[in-house]
């Protein structure tokens, strides 16, 4: 998020696109709903009539995978009516003319044809949004998990720059991150192309800095993203995987393919807290501690670093992950000598500019710090890009609309989209070990009232969902919230895994799979 959570009630208008906020980010949803009740205007654009739509001034139901068209359409109207922030564009942005030329053809009528959003509704949305003094934009995986994920993200940024909503309280581009420390994992260099704080591995200066800091020589080449590595493993090119606290055998697209890939590995180490679907394929399993069993920090979706204190002892011989890494490193000839997580944090801040001003003491004496926080006196940065963009001028991109990789056809006539439900988390490794949460929600496929009628089924009937890649049988949840011709499967459940069905087509840049759109058929089972 470019902006902070506490400031999200300060918008005049908020747009939610591609986020089932109350299911996936319930506490942020609470604050947005509250703000909407207190007068903030809320616009919701989503194929599902999500709960947030009940609090919205305008809700628009879009065909899955049409975000670029919708956002371009909004920008078309905003420019046409002169609602853009001319001063902001002139002073802080480059690429405006190209964007303007691109969105020219996205008339409401044209966008209606693509997205199914009535021209009149789009006009209402554009007016409400374009005229707002301050508007914030929220998205989640509904924007990113597409073959056009990067295009979608850039389009959201285009819109926010166009309206001058960047660098101010109540505005911003605000991706809602899905896991407790997904932001931190990225910040810490858990990515193939960067060290901590997004310092490029291919940058010689950076490499040199790290070689000096760590006292060793480092690889100068970009590594592989996970999705590509699995394909390579499938082809026999990758030999070993070391998996820490992840469960790709649930979370990866096209699980048949992934399983084959994992089975071809020479060696698989899994470090986890439970015997996950992935651990079952491992050669060695290392038992780790979990959240309340250790001290450490998480960085949340608003870039805020917060401290966790240890509450209970881990079971049996389970160890903190860092301790396992140290033992293994030392087995492999290193002399690591951390005695606690605080020492690691201190080392990390020395090579991580955006964390440089942080310490456990500072984190403990308040409610965390937003990065960038470059010095011990710096108060942290709740809102990014105030006054100027970090990189100087913000770049607008002209982005044409592209259809998703797989579209419904005669054989597979229904859009399949996947995501989360409130009661479970990600691959459900943790939540399915809670009997209460399991009692509250189990596997299902959400289908529209119309499609249920066509199939002649009611609630809880068994339904077979089939795509070109696989097939699952699960319970129907018939609801008015799903439009005709669309089905929704939560991906938490091993017995009806959504990712048996999903398409592993990737975004060409980010290599993110298109979980949000593929084609399926529904049958009474």
């Amino acid at each position, binding site marked *: 998020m470019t902006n902070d959570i506490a400031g999200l009630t300060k918008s005049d208008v908020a747009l939610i696109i591609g986020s089932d906020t*109350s299911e996936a980010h319930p506490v942020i949803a609470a604050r947005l709903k509250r703000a909407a009740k207190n007068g903030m205007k809320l616009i919701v654009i989503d194929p599902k009539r999500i709960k947030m739509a009940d609090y919205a001034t305008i809700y628009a139901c879009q065909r899955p995978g049409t975000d670029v068209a919708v956002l371009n359409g909004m920008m078309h109207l905003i420019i046409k009516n002169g609602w853009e922030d001319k001063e902001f564009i002139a002073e802080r942005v480059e690429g405006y003319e190209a964007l303007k030329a691109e969105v020219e053809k996205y008339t409401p009528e044209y966008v209606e044809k693509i997205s199914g959003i009535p021209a009149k509704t789009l006009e209402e949305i554009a007016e409400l949004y374009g005229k707002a003094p301050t508007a914030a934009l929220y998205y989640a995986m509904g924007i990113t998990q597409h073959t056009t994920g990067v295009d979608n993200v850039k389009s959201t940024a285009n819109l926010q720059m166009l309206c001058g909503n960047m660098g101010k309280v109540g505005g911003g581009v605000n991706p809602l991150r899905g896991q407790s420390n997904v932001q931190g994992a990225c910040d810490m260099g858990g990515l193939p192309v960067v060290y901590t704080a997004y310092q490029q591995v291919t940058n010689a200066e950076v490499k040199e800095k790290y070689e000096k800091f760590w006292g060793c020589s480092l690889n100068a080449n970009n590594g592989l993203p996970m999705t590509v590595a699995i394909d390579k493993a499938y082809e026999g090119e990758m030999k070993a*995987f070391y998996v820490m606290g992840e469960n790709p055998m649930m979370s990866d697209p096209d699980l048949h393919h992934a399983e084959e890939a994992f089975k071809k590995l020479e060696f698989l*180490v899994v470090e986890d807290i439970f015997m996950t679907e992935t651990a079952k394929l491992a050669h060695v*399993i290392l038992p780790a501690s979990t959240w309340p069993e250790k001290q*450490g920090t998480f960085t949340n979706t608003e870039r805020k670093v917060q401290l966790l*204190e240890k509450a209970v002892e881990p079971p049996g011989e389970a160890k903190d992950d860092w301790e396992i890494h140290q033992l293994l490193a030392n087995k492999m000839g290193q002399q690591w000598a951390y005695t606690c997580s605080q020492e690691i944090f201190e080392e990390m801040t020395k090579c991580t500019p955006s964390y440089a001003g942080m310490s456990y003491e500072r984190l403990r004496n308040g409610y965390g710090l937003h990065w960038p926080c470059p010095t011990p006196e710096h108060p942290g940065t709740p809102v990014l890009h105030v006054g100027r963009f970090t990189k100087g001028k913000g770049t607008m991109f002209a982005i044409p609309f592209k259809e998703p990789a797989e579209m419904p056809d005669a054989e597979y006539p229904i859009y399949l989209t996947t995501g989360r439900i409130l009661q479970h988390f990600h691959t459900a490794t*943790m939540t399915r070990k809670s*009997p*209460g949460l399991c009692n509250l929600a189990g596997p299902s496929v959400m289908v529209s009232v119309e499609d249920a009628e066509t199939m002649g089924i009611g609630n809880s009937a068994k339904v077979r969902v089939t795509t070109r890649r696989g097939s699952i049988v699960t319970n129907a949840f018939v609801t008015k919230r799903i439009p005709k011709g669309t089905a929704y499967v939560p991906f938490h459940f091993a017995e009806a895994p959504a990712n048996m069905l999903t398409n592993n087509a990737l975004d060409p840049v980010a290599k993110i799979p298109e979980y949000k759109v593929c084609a399926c058929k529904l049958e009474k089972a």
Partner: protein
Amino acid sequence: MLVTINGKQYEAEAGQTILQVAKKHGLYIPSLCYHQKVGVAGKCRACVVEVEGMRGLQTSCSVVVRDGMNVSTRSEKALQAQKLVVDLLLSSGKHDCLSCAQNGKCELQDAAYYLGIERPTLVFSDLEPHGDESSEFIKVDHNKCISCGRCVAACQKTVTNDVLDFGYRGANTEIVFDDGKLMGKSTCVQCGECVQICPVGALTEKKVAGQARYWETEKVKSVCPYCGVGCTMEIHVDRKLNKIVRVNGDENSPVNEGMLCVKGRFGYDFVDHSDRLTSPMIRNDDGSFRKASWDEALDLVATKLNDIKVKHGTDKIMGLASAKVTNEENYTFQKFMRTVIGTNNIDHCARL
């Protein structure tokens, strides 16, 4: 400005209520409906005080202080009224403190203790048991409910789930879920905000029954392990049993203001689940696993990784970091992959 309370002067800020000033200076006034989060309700009337120059009793939760105001929270008239109001609440409900999960953290209990009420003195006819255990995580005991309205305000104004409201009227007034449904049959998402804000034992967590009581647990600050919002929480630990008894949202956190979702509040059972991995395991040739010592397991991993590194090259090894472990552990993991293995093949499921 200065305000006199019970004969002593206290510093106060403009706009503060008498109750807020008293609280800030550690002075206790019985009060059951006011909560900083949901604001002034003026319902319980237990916080009445006398203010010089104002006629009759004033509710301290609603009267804003003026410079030089002279307040008595313990005048005979104020105490008599406070006592009777609390007595009415004790008498009209069934507050079985001995087995109540809220024992020791009950604001009604605090008020009764402060006012020296040993037992209720008014007779209300025998109350029928009136509870609702239909919800997965939350127990409702209407006989302990004092209709203070905090839960209703929290559900409508804080978490904005709009499930709770008041139904019926007069002495029959009670909290209702949707159109009078059982809690478990309603649209309640069991975020537990109502439980956290309930001053008495009317809304309690089912799971805490019989476990260590409030004063027996150690409170540890932490951050929720689920989605990326980063709600801060207070984990209540039974040290003797090395067990989490309860998780509360941190009321002062700017991130979540005390709120949690059903997972964050109730989904901690996995921690001491019997399926937890408790020792390293090595796969047998037949595909089954055997327990191993750390030494053996790590030796095997070190050997295997070294072999592959040597045989196939460092870039044939992939490391998956985790969006669910700490920054420190992600740091050591990528450091391990980069410095020990010598590859940038590191990723995690940020995209998945």
